[in-house]
């Protein structure tokens, strides 16, 4: 599998690996994928009172492009409002990382992870 330099860079130097405390009310978690499919992404966002994502962390079980996609979105969501983060498209991720066609599902998963984290945050805040 010939990966782009950006994928390899994110894979070798992943940004924002880790977890936030689950009981922190400003933290929301999105977990998507399944072990059976070979990838599971956990994206956590820390949202301030103004609805801006201050920080993000991820943990991913998956191939190199799944790890790179999740690493990239932790960078992208930081500083964005929830509404702005909601607009991140898998095609942007795939294009940024120059993912090969068989790896497009990794970018879809990363988009899903953002949406799942935002949904979790809204649910925590009572919709």
């Amino acid at each position: 599998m010939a990966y782009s330099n950006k994928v390899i860079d994110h894979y070798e130097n992943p940004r924002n690996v880790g977890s936030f405390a689950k009981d922190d009310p400003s933290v929301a978690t999105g977990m998507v994928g399944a072990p059976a499919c070979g990838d599971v992404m956990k994206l956590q966002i820390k949202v301030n009172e103004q609805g801006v994502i201050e920080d993000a962390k991820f943990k991913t079980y998956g191939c190199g492009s799944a790890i790179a996609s999740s690493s990239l979105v932790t960078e992208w969501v930081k500083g964005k409002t929830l509404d702005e983060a909601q607009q991140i498209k898998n095609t942007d991720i795939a294009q940024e990382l120059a993912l090969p066609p068989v790896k497009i599902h990794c970018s879809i998963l990363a988009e899903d992870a953002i949406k799942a984290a935002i949904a979790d945050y809204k649910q925590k805040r009572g919709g």
Partner: protein
Amino acid sequence: MKLPIYLDYAATTPVDPRVAEKMMQFLTMDGQFGNPASRSHRFGWQAEEAVEIARSQIAELVNADPREIVFTSGATESNNLAIKGAAEFYHKKGKHLITVKTEHKAVLDTMRQLERDGFDVTYLDVEANGLVDLTKLEQAMRSDTTVISIMMVNNEIGVVQDVAAIGELCRSKGIIFHVDAAQATGKVAIDLQQLKVDLMSFSGHKTYGPKGIGALFVRRKPRIRLEAQTHGGGHERGMRSGTLATHQIVAMGEAFRLAKEEMAAEQQRITALRDRLWNGIKDIEQVFLNGDAKARVPNITNVSFNYVEGESLIMALKDIAVSSGSACTSASLEPSYVLRALGLSDELAHSSIRFSIGRFTTEEQIDHTIKIVHEAIAKLREMSPLWDMYKDGIDLNTVAWVAH
């Protein structure tokens, strides 16, 4: 140490330099480049003699008669010729065939083609250790079963089937027994005077010969007949037409001669390296050896590192050339069908790495591999949400996953 370290000998072996040396003598004007089928001059006679020596060398490794060896382009062609050739020749006797779910695609896909041609095929399950249960095999046999194809050494997990016992069973029922032995030559002793095997496939490039050459053993007593799949000048007693590739045949002969000569010492050395590798990694938490621990060749070690995905592991092991049972190395999302057939969970199947050791592997390379594996597993588990869940005592089977 030169990097990357090659630990994928089950995919292909480099040509032994002694073999390459021999091969080069059969190509140019200064060498013996003649067509072995040319009967009218010494160029042809010399080439024919070289081919016949190679045929004997191959026969000697497996204790067969040279007249039982048919040259092909490789084990895939041998499997096609054996299975299609026998199924078609004996189709009036019956149209039922049996094989095993963990066979190589060259056997499975050939069977699928025969199904499209009106044959009925049983794909037997294997036990959790990768071996065929003889009772289940016997139960699958029918009065119209004509051919059974079971490999000797599995290419992914290295388990060795009990070919002797399966052969006895097939012979007692009058069923033709084909064995794909591509991964077996030079690794396990094969005695075709003893084994009740009717057809056996061989490959050049799994045993330090070149790619593009293979052979099929076709038993003479009792005589097995095949419907030819390649038609033409009637080479190889009409079973496989096409000008013989003298240089490749001579090389495969030399490779098999070396395999016979050096097998005992080589297997001892490789077993020691395998033990060194396994002892170096087996104490990592949640590491599993795939396939039977005893009935196996020493050169193949298939290991699952739980909660780490195979392709990312291969990326982390970039200084080591290995292969993975993970789906992510292919276009599909399905993990290795061989590991799934053993009943492995998806996580474990996705987390597998095949290390295959060979003639040129050194202790230093194994030690470096152990070190890199430890580092890679630590790094990826640090990143793995599944590992966290395991550490938190969460049973992954109880989680409602959002499949995609």
